[in-house]
C-alpha cells in the first residue's frame, strides 16, 4: 500500500470519517467532564462576544464605537479572540437552532471539531509524506493520547492551536513547491496568531528549515528558489488577520499588542508538583516536558515515534553524506523534527512557566504521531518479511491486526483515563499509583468536581452550598445549567458557611485542606473521590450541617 506523496479522495474520506467519529466520541463522553477553570472564563468571554456580534448585526455603527468594543472585548483580553469568537458564533447558532442538549456543548464543540479536523490533517500530512498506512496510524495514535483526548473536550485554545500550528506547517511544506500554498500558509499563520501565542515560534522553525533545504539543494546542484514566499505571505497576511479578527486591537492597537505580548512574556508563575516538589518560581526543571511526555504518552506509541525518528534521522544523515536518488528534496523530516522539538525545548527553558501540564507542548504531538506512523510502517514491512506465512494467510488483515495491537495500549489507557484525563499517567510512571508515589501533579483546573455530581445529588437533596476549591463558580454553575446538578446546589467562597467543602488534591492545595480542618474541627472527609485508588478530591461535611441532620433525625423519631 505505497501511496507516499499522493493524497486521494479516499484519504480525505478517511480523514473526514476519523473527524466525525472522534467528534461523536467527544460529544458522547463530554458530560462526564466538569467544566475546568479556564473553560468557565471562556464561556463568559464567548457570551460577551456573542452580545457584541448581535449588536454588530443590529446596529453596526454603535457596535464599532470604542466604548462598545471595549465593553465586550475587554473580557479575557489577554488571549486573542478567534477561538472565543467561534465559541460565540457556535453559541449563537445553537441559541437559534437548539442543536445541543447541554449549555456547555456549543462552546466545547469548537474544541471538539478542532480535534476532529486535526486528525484529518494528520492523516493527510502523514499520507503525503509517508503513505496512507503511516498517515492513518499517525492520526489514530494522536487520537489515542490520553491527555490530548481530555483537552479535546474543552472550550479552550490548546487543541485549536495544535490544529492551527499543524495547518501552518502543512501549508508551509506545500509552499516549497507551490506558490499558492505560500498564501495559504500566510493565511493559516494569521489564524494561528489569532488563536494562541504558541504560533510565534513558527517563522523561526521554518526559517531554519528553509535555509537547510536551500543549502542542501545548492550542495546537490539542484535549483531551489531562495525567495521565501511563505515568509512574505506570513508577513503580509499574519498581522492583518490577527488584528482584523480581534476587535480589542482596533483601538490603541500598538499599546494593546504590547500589553498582550508582555502578559505572556512575563506570565505569572503558578504551582506545579513534580517529583514531590511544588514548583512555583524559576528555575523550573528542564526535564519537565521530556519526563511528562514519557510519563503520559503510551509507551508503545512513544517507542514507535522513536523508531520513526531514528529511521528519518538515518535517511537524512545518509543524504547529507551522499545526496542520492529518491531523496526528499524538501527534507520533511527536518521540518517535523523542528516542529516536534521546538515547543518542548521552549518549555525546557528554566524560566518558562510549567503550570499547564503537557498542554503547552501539544503542538509537538502531531509530529510525534507522524513519526510513530513512520515507525509502524517500517515495522510492518519487517514483520511482514519475518512472518511471511502468517502475513500471507492473513492477507489484508495482517496490517490492521498489527495496527490494532500497537494501538491497543493507547486505546486502553485513553479509555481508562476518562474522565480523569489530567490525572492519568502511563506505564513509565507506574500508572496512576506510581505517579502518586513519585509526587507528580495529580490534576489542575478543578475539573474533577464534575465527578462528584452523584455525591451531591444524593447528599444535598434539598439543595445547599458547596465550597468548590479550584473550580470557578462559573464552571460549577454550568454543571447545574447542563442539567447534571440541581440548580439549588450553589457554590460558595466561604468554607465556614458551606454545607460541604471540597479540596482538589494538588500539593499546594494542602492549604485549603487545612483550612477546612480548622474550620470544621475535623480531618475526616466523608467522601474521597479516587482514580485507581489515588485520592483526587476529598469532600468534608460541615459539622453544623451534620448537627442539623442529627437534630432533624432526632425530632423525626
Amino acid at each position, binding site marked *: 500500500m505505497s501511496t507516499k506523496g499522493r493524497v486521494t479522495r479516499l484519504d480525505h474520506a478517511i480523514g473526514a470519517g476519523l473527524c466525525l467519529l472522534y467528534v461523536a466520541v467527544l460529544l458522547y463522553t463530554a458530560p462526564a467532564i466538569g467544566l475546568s477553570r479556564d473553560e468557565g472564563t471562556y464561556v463568559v468571554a464567548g457570551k460577551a462576544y456573542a452580545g457584541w456580534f448581535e449588536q454588530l448585526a443590529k446596529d453596526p455603527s454603535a457596535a464599532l464605537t470604542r466604548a462598545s468594543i471595549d465593553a465586550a472585548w475587554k473580557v479575557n483580553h489577554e488571549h486573542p479572540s478567534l477561538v472565543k469568537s467561534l465559541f460565540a458564533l457556535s453559541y449563537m447558532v445553537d441559541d437559534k437552532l437548539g442543536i445541543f442538549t447541554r449549555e456547555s456543548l456549543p462552546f466545547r464543540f469548537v474544541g471538539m471539531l478542532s480535534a476532529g479536523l486535526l486528525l484529518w490533517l494528520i492523516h493527510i500530512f502523514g499520507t503525503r509524506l509517508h503513505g496512507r498506512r503511516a498517515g492513518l496510524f499517525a492520526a489514530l495514535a494522536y487520537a489515542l493520547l490520553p491527555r490530548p483526548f481530555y483537552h479535546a473536550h474543552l472550550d479552550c485554545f490548546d487543541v485549536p492551536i495544535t490544529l492551527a500550528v499543524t495547518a501552518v506547517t502543512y501549508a508551509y511544506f506545500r509552499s516549497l513547491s507551490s506558490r499558492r500554498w505560500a498564501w495559504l500558509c500566510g493565511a493559516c499563520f494569521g489564524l494561528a496568531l489569532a488563536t494562541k501565542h504558541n504560533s510565534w515560534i513558527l517563522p523561526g522553525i521554518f526559517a531554519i528549515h528553509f535555509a537547510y533545504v536551500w543549502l542542501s539543494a545548492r550542495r546537490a546542484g539542484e535549483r531551489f528558489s531562495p525567495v521565501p514566499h511563505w515568509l512574505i505571505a506570513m508577513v503580509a497576511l499574519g498581522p492583518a488577520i490577527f488584528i482584523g479578527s480581534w476587535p480589542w486591537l482596533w483601538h490603541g492597537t500598538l499599546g494593546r499588542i504590547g500589553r498582550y505580548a508582555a502578559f505572556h512574556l512575563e506570565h505569572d508563575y503558578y504551582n506545579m508538583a513534580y517529583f514531590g516538589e511544588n514548583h*512555583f518560581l524559576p528555575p523550573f526543571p528542564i526535564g519537565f516536558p521530556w519526563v511528562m511526555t514519557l510519563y503520559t504518552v503510551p509507551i508503545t506509541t512513544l517507542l514507535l515515534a522513536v523508531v520513526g525518528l531514528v529511521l528519518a534521522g538515518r535517511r537524512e544523515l545518509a543524504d547529507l553524506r551522499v545526496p542520492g536518488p529518491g531523496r526528499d528534496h524538501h527534507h520533511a523530516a527536518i521540518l517535523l523534527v523542528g516542529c516536534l522539538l521546538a515547543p518542548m525545548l521552549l518549555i525546557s527553558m528554566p524560566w518558562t512557566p510549567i503550570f499547564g501540564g503537557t498542554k503547552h507542548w501539544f503542538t509537538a504531538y502531531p509530529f510525534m504521531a507522524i513519526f510513530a506512523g513512520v515507525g509502524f510502517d517500517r515495522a510492518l514491512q*519487517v514483520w511482514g518479511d*519475518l512472518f511471511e506465512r502468517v502475513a500471507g494467510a492473513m492477507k489484508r488483515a495482517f496490517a490492521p491486526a498489527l495496527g490494532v495491537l500497537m494501538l491497543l495500549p493507547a486505546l486502553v489507557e485513553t479509555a481508562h483515563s476518562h474522565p480523569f484525563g489530567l490525572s492519568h499517567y502511563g506505564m513509565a510512571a507506574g*500508572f496512576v499509583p506510581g505517579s502518586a508515589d513519585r509526587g507528580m501533579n495529580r490534576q489542575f483546573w478543578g475539573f474533577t468536581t464534575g465527578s462528584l455530581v452523584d455525591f451531591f445529588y444524593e447528599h444535598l437533596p434539598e439543595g445547599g452550598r458547596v465550597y468548590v476549591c479550584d473550580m470557578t463558580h462559573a464552571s460549577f454553575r454550568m454543571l447545574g445549567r447542563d442539567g447534571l446538578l440541581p440548580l439549588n446546589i450553589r457554590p460558595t*467562597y466561604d468554607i465556614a458557611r458551606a454545607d460541604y467543602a471540597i479540596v482538589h488534591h494538588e500539593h499546594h492545595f*494542602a492549604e485549603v485542606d487545612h483550612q477546612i480542618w*480548622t474550620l470544621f474541627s475535623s480531618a475526616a472527609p466523608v467522601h474521597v473521590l479516587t482514580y485507581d485508588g489515588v485520592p483526587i478530591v476529598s469532600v468534608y461535611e460541615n459539622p453544623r450541617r451534620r448537627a442539623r441532620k442529627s437534630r432533624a433525625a432526632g425530632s423525626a423519631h
Partner: protein
Amino acid sequence: MTAPGRSRFLSALPWLALLIFPVVEVGAHAFTRAAVPTEHDWRVAADFVGERSSEGDLFVAAPDWADPLVRQYLGDRIDLPMAGRTGVAGYRRLWSLSPRGARPPEAAGRTPELSEDFGGVRVERFALDAPRVLHDLVEHVADARVTQIVGGKPRPCEYGMHGPGRRGGLGYGVVPPARRFQCPDRRGFVWVAPVIMEDLELQPRRCVYQHPAGGEPVRVTVPDVPVGKRLEVHAGLYYEHERMLDGAPVKLVVRFGDEQVGEMIHRDGEGWRALTIDTAKRAGERVDVSFETTSARSHKRIFCWSARILSAGGPQ
C-alpha cells in the same frame, strides 16, 4: 541456524521486541488496576484497626498520598492533634494502613508486631518507645491569658466566639476559627487560636497561631503547666509566607513565669523548626509558660508554634 539466518534473526530481534511492548503495557496496566484496593478492602481494614485500637495509638497512611483515605475510613479516630502531629511523642503504638505495601517513615527500623492483608490494604502495627507527653500546651491554649503589648502596655485579647474571619481559599493563609482570642488591633490578623497550618514542606501542623504584631510582643501565657524533663517547641511560618524567603525573621521567646528559658529566631527557609528546652531542674513544679512573638516587619508573617512538656528523652 545458518550464519545468514542467524544474522537475519539478530537484526530482527529489536522488531520482534517491539511486538511484545503492547502486550507488556496492557498487561502492566491491568495488573496495576487489579491491585487497587476496593472500598470493601478499606472498610474491612478500618474495622479491623478500630476493633483492636486503644488510646495512645497513632494511625498513619503509607504512602502518604493515601492519607485522605485513611482519614476517611478511620473517621474521628484521627483527631486534629494526630493529623497535625509533630513526631510520635505521646503515642504507644503505630498502625500503618498501606494500599501498596509501603511502610511509613515512623516505622523505619521497627519490626511489625502484627501484619494483616485485607485485599489491597495491608495493616501493620508497631510498638513505639516514644516519650510521654505530660502536657500539650496547644490543647490548653483556651485557658491562656493573651495580651498584645502596645506602647509598652499590655492590652488583653478577648477570648470567645468572634464569628468567621477570612473565608478561606488558596493564598488566604490560616483561617481563624470562630472561637479565638481576638486582639484589639485594627489590622485584624492579630488573634490567637489552635489551628492547622501547612509548613514549608506543606505538612499539616497542629499549632497555635500567633502572628507577630511588630516590634512589641503578642504574649500567650498558659497557666499552671506541670514541668517535665524537657519542653519541646516547634514553630514555623505559613507556607506561602515562608517560601518566598524574603520575610523578616520572627522571634519567639519562651518564659517560665518571668524567667526566659528559651528563644528561637526563625528565618525564612528554616521550615518547621525545633527548640528543645531542658527543664529537668524544675521537673515537678507547676509554672505559667509564656510565648512572645515579635518581628521587625509583621507583613506576611503568619507564625505558629506547638509546645509539649515531655516526660523523658527518646526518639521522636
